[in-house]
């Protein structure tokens, strides 16, 4: 048993090292690729952004509206115990911007795009497409990883901002309807208590989550073993690890901020 634990640990460390090197290489190609006549192409980044973002938009909207309403229901319910339901906007505003938007959007993209990255990369590895790239003299990191990484780093924070807007809007509608307040009052109250810091906290997290999603997807995709079953296993691992990493990181982030 000790042996399998040891091997698992060694493998995990290996993967973390691999992820770090992928990140370093992506940064390298992004910064210096054009000097080596191997630029990270804007067109590829844009195509990736469209793929990650536009498809996720409807479900992202639905989820953030749902979360907003859910939070509004719970906040009003709990605060009613103290007769303080008119302060519901405080809890709603802070938890949506700091926690729920980045978390839910992160989990959504880990499921949607993290899996897609792992599936694509593992299929390409099995079909020797990655070998073909290297033989042609194209760095696979520059050609496949860097565009996805940059696209994700741009799209996830943008989606998080969108989720803030939709979530707060939906919560506002529910609060104003059930407490007989005007929507405008909810908006002014929320703007008054929200600081730039709250938004930045959420955005900072979404950057971190974007990094985790892509690197975990790529590490699992690139270390695929076997044929078609390997692709399935790599994809599953990417999603499970991605979501777990996001939730754990979120907790650590909250702890560090609180300290």
């Amino acid at each position, binding site marked *: 048993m000790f042996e399998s634990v040891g091997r698992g640990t060694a493998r995990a460390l290996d993967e973390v090292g691999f992820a770090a090197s992928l990140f370093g290489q992506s940064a390298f190609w992004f910064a210096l690729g054009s000097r080596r006549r191997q630029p990270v192409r804007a067109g590829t980044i844009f195509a990736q952004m469209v793929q990650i973002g536009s498809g996720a938009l409807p479900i992202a909207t639905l989820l953030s509206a749902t979360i907003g309403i859910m939070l509004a229901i719970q906040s009003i319910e709990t605060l009613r115990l103290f007769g303080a339901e008119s302060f519901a906007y405080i809890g709603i505003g802070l938890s949506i911007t700091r926690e729920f938007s980045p978390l839910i959007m992160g989990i959504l993209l880990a499921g949607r795009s993290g899996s897609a990255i792992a599936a694509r990369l593992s299929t390409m590895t099995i079909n*020797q*497409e990655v*070998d*073909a790239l*290297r*033989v*042609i*003299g194209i760095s696979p990191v520059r050609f496949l990883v860097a565009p996805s990484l940059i696209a994700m780093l741009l799209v996830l924070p943008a989606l998080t901002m969108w989720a803030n807007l939709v979530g707060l809007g939906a919560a506002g509608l529910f609060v104003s309807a059930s407490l007989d307040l005007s929507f405008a009052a909810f908006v002014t109250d929320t703007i008054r208590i929200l600081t730039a810091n709250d938004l930045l906290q959420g955005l900072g997290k979404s950057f971190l989550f974007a990094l985790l999603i892509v690197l975990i997807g790529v590490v699992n995709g690139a270390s695929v073993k076997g044929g078609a079953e390997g692709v399935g296993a790599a994809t599953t691992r990417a999603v499970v690890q991605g979501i777990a990493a996001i939730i754990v990181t979120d907790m650590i982030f909250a702890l560090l901020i609180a300290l």
Partner: protein
Amino acid sequence: MSTAIARHRQAHTAGEPVIEVSGLHAHYGQRQILFGVDLIVKRGEILVIMGGSGSGKSTLLRHLVGLEQPTAGTIKLLGQDLHDLPPLEAMALRRQMGVAFQGGALFSSLSVAENIKLPLREHVRLDEKTMDIMARLKLEVVNLAGFGDLMPSELSGGMLKRAAVARAIVMDPKLVFFDEPSAGLDPVVSSALDNLILRLREAMGITIVVVTHEVESAFKIADRIAILDQGRVLAVDSVKAIRSSRNQRIQNLLNRVAEEEQIEPAEYLRRLTGTPATPDHASI
């Protein structure tokens, strides 16, 4: 074989070395795959590397094209060691070689023509029109004219391999590697691919290294055959010499594979479907 072609081959095999492998040791993890391989490929020749499964021939190929780093020993392509070169020069060397992978390894997200244009797009500055023309020319060379707009998933196995050849030669390389060109193809298509390999050498003077386990195809295209066995080079010699070799291991290799190929069609069908090839009329 006509004497003209024989003389042509003679002239080619007299060329200077294009690939020099010396003392190549290779490992996958803990397992040693290659044990001190020495090999020379001369300019303009077609060298076929043969061996059974597990002989290390795929590993040798991966080292030759620079996908793996040797544990020990050196590999010189066109006089240069790929692993010792600074990035830009390594890139220049890569431009002079092409690889046709076993399953084609075309990028599934790009059309056939875009696949062929990719090396051009990455390595040289050309306008779109010139690249189109070059892609079309290479597609004609491999008899795939008019298929450029299709996606790789729309091509058959043989067409995929030919498209991969077009991509491998688009930069007009001096050196082209083939990984199992006949694998998974029927005899007619496989023979057409053999002819294509011969034509590339005749028309473009490319030095060609082919890894295969198909005896018939090896005899047809090779100037010289290198037999790999358990990670060591057993022999490197002309087709004639290899054929008449008294070495038992070489004969085993040649005969075993030959036997597999000479199955009667009916027998082949029976093995394929697991049913008798001759229908049992009594049961109808």
